[in-house]
């Protein structure tokens, strides 16, 4: 089994999600770190690397987190943007370059009780588009879905299955914020937010924290938990934004897919679980298509046929995702895939799952993906 030259996840930790009044982002991230360390069966003195992801309000960077956690790591860095993939890839690079051997990855936010404003205008051309009322991620997502409808005849009822299926998983997940059952009828009866999208197509801002511990395959052999191996990683940047044709459909995700499958020596048929980062349901639809689980344009019927549900051909966001579990910039997707690959996912466990794909984006600027495997 591959291991020595690989980076692996050996510890996961998280706080409660939803509202954590009176607690700052660094403190929230710190409690997730303590859990991850215990989960890994490691001591604080074993950690010689720290990758900190800044909170919504810009705090909880590596300098602040290192001081709070009492760490003086050999290597540390801060990432300014979300999506756990970027932190994981940086940690893997630090491990493989020999800069650190055991890296803590932290993220915490108090965006909900701190009342962060997510109504800001999206994209680098914000000052050109704000006067037209083009605000909030719901706007570009609605335009992207309306285009998909125009090109392929995709229906709102087909899209509904993303929110509905994820709610079904969330009902099996004690950590999830939204666990009340949701049917396709409930979805269609709810009002539009930005038509053709509804409230259920969008995440809800949450407080919470997540931490991971990564180390080398060689070190992981001595630990109790089955190591979850990073088998392939890929990224792309798409910085031309509005100048790119069809930028809202994000066709550049296909490049990330091609690279991550090549890196892992696997294809869509080899993936048992898909984690598609979902500030909006539309991103899940796009990722199903660009990552090759169905043909481009066929996401609607694919969803309606139940492929992404428990027992389907490719269960998607089995934690409930950001639509139903919590908005954690994808960090909880990684916690969930580690649990699934370890066989610790309880009522929502996908039997025999050995390989998971986690894909994410940062607005319209960056895309990333990781494939994880468990050694059995």
């Amino acid at each position, binding site marked *: 089994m591959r291991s020595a030259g690989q980076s692996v996840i050996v510890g996961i930790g998280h706080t409660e999600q939803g509202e954590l009044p009176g607690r700052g982002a660094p403190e929230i991230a710190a409690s997730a770190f303590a859990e991850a360390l215990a989960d890994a069966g490691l001591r604080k003195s074993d950690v010689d690397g720290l990758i900190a992801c800044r909170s919504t309000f810009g705090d909880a960077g590596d300098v602040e987190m290192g001081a709070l956690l009492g760490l003086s790591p050999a290597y540390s860095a801060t990432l300014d943007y979300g999506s756990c993939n970027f932190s994981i890839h940086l940690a893997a690079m630090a491990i493989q370059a020999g800069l650190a051997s055991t890296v803590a990855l932290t993220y915490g936010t108090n965006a909900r009780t701190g009342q962060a404003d997510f*109504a800001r205008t999206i994209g*680098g*051309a914000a*000052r*050109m*588009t*704000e*006067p*037209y*009322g*083009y*605000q*909030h991620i*719901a*706007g570009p997502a*609605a*335009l*992207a879905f*309306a*285009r998909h409808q*125009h090109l392929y005849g995709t229906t709102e009822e087909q899209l509904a299955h993303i929110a509905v299926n994820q709610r079904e998983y969330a009902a099996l997940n004690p950590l999830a914020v939204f666990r009340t059952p949701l049917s396709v009828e409930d979805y269609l009866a709810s*009002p*539009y*937010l*930005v*038509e*053709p*999208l509804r409230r259920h197509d969008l995440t809800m801002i949450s407080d919470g924290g997540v931490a991971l511990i990564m180390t080398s395959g060689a070190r992981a052999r001595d630990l109790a938990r089955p190591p979850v191996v990073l088998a392939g990683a890929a990224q792309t940047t798409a910085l*031309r934004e*509005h*100048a790119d044709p069809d930028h*809202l459909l994000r066709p550049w995700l296909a490049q990330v897919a091609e690279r991550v499958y090549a890196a892992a020596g696997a294809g869509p048929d080899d993936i048992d679980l898909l984690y598609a980062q979902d500030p909006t349901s539309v991103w899940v639809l796009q990722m199903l298509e660009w990552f090759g689980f169905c043909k481009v344009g066929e996401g609607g019927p694919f969803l309606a046929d139940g492929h992404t549900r428990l027992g389907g051909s490719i269960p998607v966001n089995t934690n409930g995702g950001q639509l139903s579990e919590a908005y954690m910039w994808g960090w909880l997707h990684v916690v969930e895939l580690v649990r699934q690959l370890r066989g610790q996912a309880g009522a929502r466990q996908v039997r025999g799952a050995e390989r998971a794909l986690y894909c994410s984006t940062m607005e319209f600027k960056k895309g990333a993906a990781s494939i994880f495997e468990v050694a059995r």
Partner: protein
Amino acid sequence: MTSARTRPLPDLDDPLAGPHWRAAAAGRLEVQRCPACDEPRWPPAPICPGCLVPGGTWSLLSGDGVVWSVATYHRAFHPGLSAEVPYRVAVVELAEGPRLVTNVREDVRAGDAVRAVFDEVAPGIRLIRFERREERT
């Protein structure tokens, strides 16, 4: 800058985009063209992202385009827009190539032919919106 209660307005004195908004106020749709490769550039930028030549010549476009996609805001995410909901935001692909995020006046669909219209939203300030046009033959 606009206060929370007034609707968001363009800055006619913006060093980069000001010429676009001043042209709009006068009823013209103008974007930069690269002085070297002549490529129409949107959004405004200090250099050509294609050939890296600095500067741009503000040039008149036809104002004709086709709707790429359209969505209707039923909620105002900016308090200054609460009096305007529901309103339609569209991406319009201009005949010359650039795609604008804009508003459409009426219920249009992707693929519909549209033309630019200039709506005064504050004294001396116009936004470039679009309305349906008959496809030329």
